[in-house]
């Protein structure tokens, strides 16, 4: 690597001085503020800091001190990962890359003054603002459920405590009980995620509670990797999983978190665990910044800049960018294109043409991994799909095991790419 650690310790000291009096600046180093320390934000911050050799001030705003990845959280549910293995610190980004990591909530954006307001009261100026806040939920999208019910009926669609809660509830299910999932409508984070989760819960139940049932209420006609999941469910978990699609009322549902019932098409079913995954929208700060149109933030494909404000870039799940799925891999891929473009705009470095890729791995049962992937390019209109592949039904056990091993390697690779 070409960057020099000592240079960055210097950069950190300079930045700390800046933060002490954020609005009084004598120095002219351009400032990038990144909101959200996940696959999009952490990657963007790291690449801008790494590749600009200290020429750009980078501040990363992220409320969590330990980041629990949402990707691979299903493997924790299935018993294939420890929760601690999903936790990552921002220490290396601060210590080795000179990024000013601020553990706070961004609560306001003044686009005219180009400042970000923090819940703690500080105001951070920026030349470029990168928003990568992930998802929030659409109020009222599941009748009977709101955030106050997330303990009784967890969403577990943001990594961390919700994931642990859901697993504890599965473990506490009565013998022969029912695990219910309310699956989300499109578009949402991690298209195969709900169905990998069903697979992992089934794997766990098969071990600890083999007569238990899984009921999915799904508003979608079809879902990601459907043929692969359905083949796997029939092989590994025969008779355990029932999916109610929209033709059978899967879109017409409500829940009662007090009574613990799921009502599908007017018929109430008592359930023991209810995983409610509501409809999704861009993380709230994108809306506060005024860069959303409807639920998502439209961006230009070449540099992920907002179509509403060219000084703001939006990455990952929050962005309406075109054909890429909302995944950690996509956010990481977009972040590197964005970082290259932002660095070019602020320091005159070479901007190379945008190129994107994505692969989503899913685990169906022990050593039964599948994947789907595609490459993308930037067009005037959107990020457009170029080419792709998907695992095939009937693949050999060796290939499926290799695919799972590859996903573990990807997890190690992407988290190193995010956190250093």
């Amino acid at each position, binding site marked *: *690597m*070409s960057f020099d650690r000592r240079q960055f310790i210097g950069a950190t000291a300079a930045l700390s001085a800046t933060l002490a009096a954020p609005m009084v600046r004598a120095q002219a180093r351009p400032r990038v503020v990144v909101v959200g320390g996940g696959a999009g934000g952490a990657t963007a911050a790291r*690449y801008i800091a790494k*590749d600009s050799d200290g020429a750009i001030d980078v501040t990363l705003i992220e409320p969590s001190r330990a980041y629990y990845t949402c990707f691979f959280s299903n493997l924790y549910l299935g018993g294939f990962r420890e929760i601690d293995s999903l936790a990552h610190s921002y220490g290396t980004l601060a210590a080795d890359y000179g990024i000013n990591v601020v553990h706070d909530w961004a609560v306001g954006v003044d686009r005219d003054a180009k400042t970000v307001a923090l819940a703690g009261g500080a105001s951070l100026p920026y030349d470029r603002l990168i928003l990568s806040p992930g998802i929030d939920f659409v109020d009222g999208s599941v009748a009977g459920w709101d955030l106050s019910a997330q303990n009784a009926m967890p969403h577990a669609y943001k990594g961390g405590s919700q994931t642990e809660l859901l697993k504890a509830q599965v473990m506490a299910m009565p013998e022969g009980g029912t695990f219910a999932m309310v699956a989300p409508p499109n578009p949402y984070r991690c298209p195969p995620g709900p169905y990998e989760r069903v697979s992992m819960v089934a794997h766990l139940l098969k071990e600890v509670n083999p007569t238990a049932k899984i009921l999915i209420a799904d508003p979608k006609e079809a879902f990601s990797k459907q043929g692969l999941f359905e083949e796997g469910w029939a092989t590994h978990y025969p008779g355990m999983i029932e999916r109610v699609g929209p033709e059978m009322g899967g879109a017409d549902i409500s829940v009662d978190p007090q009574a613990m019932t799921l009502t599908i098409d007017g018929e109430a079913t008592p359930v023991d665990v209810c995983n409610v995954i509501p409809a999704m929208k861009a993380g709230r700060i994108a809306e506060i910044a005024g860069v959303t149109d409807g639920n998502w933030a439209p961006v230009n494909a070449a540099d992920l800049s907002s179509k509403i404000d060219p000084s703001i870039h939006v990455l990952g799940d929050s962005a309406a960018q075109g054909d890429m799925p909302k995944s950690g*891999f996509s956010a*990481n*891929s977009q972040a*590197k294109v964005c970082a*290259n473009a932002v660095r070019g705009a602020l320091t005159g470095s*070479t901007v*190379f043409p945008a*190129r994107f*890729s994505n*692969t989503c791995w899913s685990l169906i049962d022990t050593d039964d991994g599948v*994947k789907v*992937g*595609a*490459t993308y390019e930037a067009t005037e209109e959107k990020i457009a799909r*170029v*080419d*792709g*592949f998907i*695992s095939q039904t009937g693949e050999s056990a060796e290939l499926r095991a290799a695919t799972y*091993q*590859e*996903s*573990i*390697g*990807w997890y*190690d*690779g*992407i988290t*190193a*790419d995010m956190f250093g």
Partner: protein
Amino acid sequence: MRLPVLSAVLACCGASLAMSQSLDLTLTDPDQIAAECGGTAAAGEVLFTSCSACHALQPEDARPTQAGPHLGALFGREVAAVDGYAYSPGLRQLQAEGAIWEREALHAYLQGDLLPDTHPVVAGEQDRRDILTFVRVATLPPPPARGELVVPPEVLAIEGDPAYGEYLASECAGCHRSGSGNVPAIDLLDGEYFITAMHEYRARARTNETMRLIAARLTDEEIAALAAYYLSIE
């Protein structure tokens, strides 16, 4: 393969083919094939239903009742190469001359301009292009075996731009990291091995679908740039 023969054939038929010499028979990427053939595979697939009574796409699908040969690896194949069919005198003549099929000759044949025989004519220019796009994609020869592919010395000698390579390598870094792991480390590979491996993925001589996809859109220069970058960080 380059054809010495069809130019002569075309001349003798009086077909006014301003030969663009776009006879690259090594294309394997469907999008590049579509661009080269000027058609759409999906449209060609629909049109091909009129051809499939007589022609199978691959040898294993050929039926004895079909009047014409299978079209497996048609682009680059010798004329009248599949035994057991009643080829026209014109096709037999081409066969005797050792001609091989490529796009412009096939286009002229479908148009009825290449030979005076009884093969059905496809009237529309775009229809011909669509059919040829589809057939070419659907009849690609199987990929070479790993180790079979030889990267030409002039390609190995391309001097890559390490700065561009560093940018391109950011795509790799989403999965590959230094040190051992479930996805192999690539930063310390021998340059020639790395370049050959990437060409093998692009030619589908290696099996990993993710890597085939990544390599599919890398040019020779981009592979060289990646190699130059990885060498620069040693």
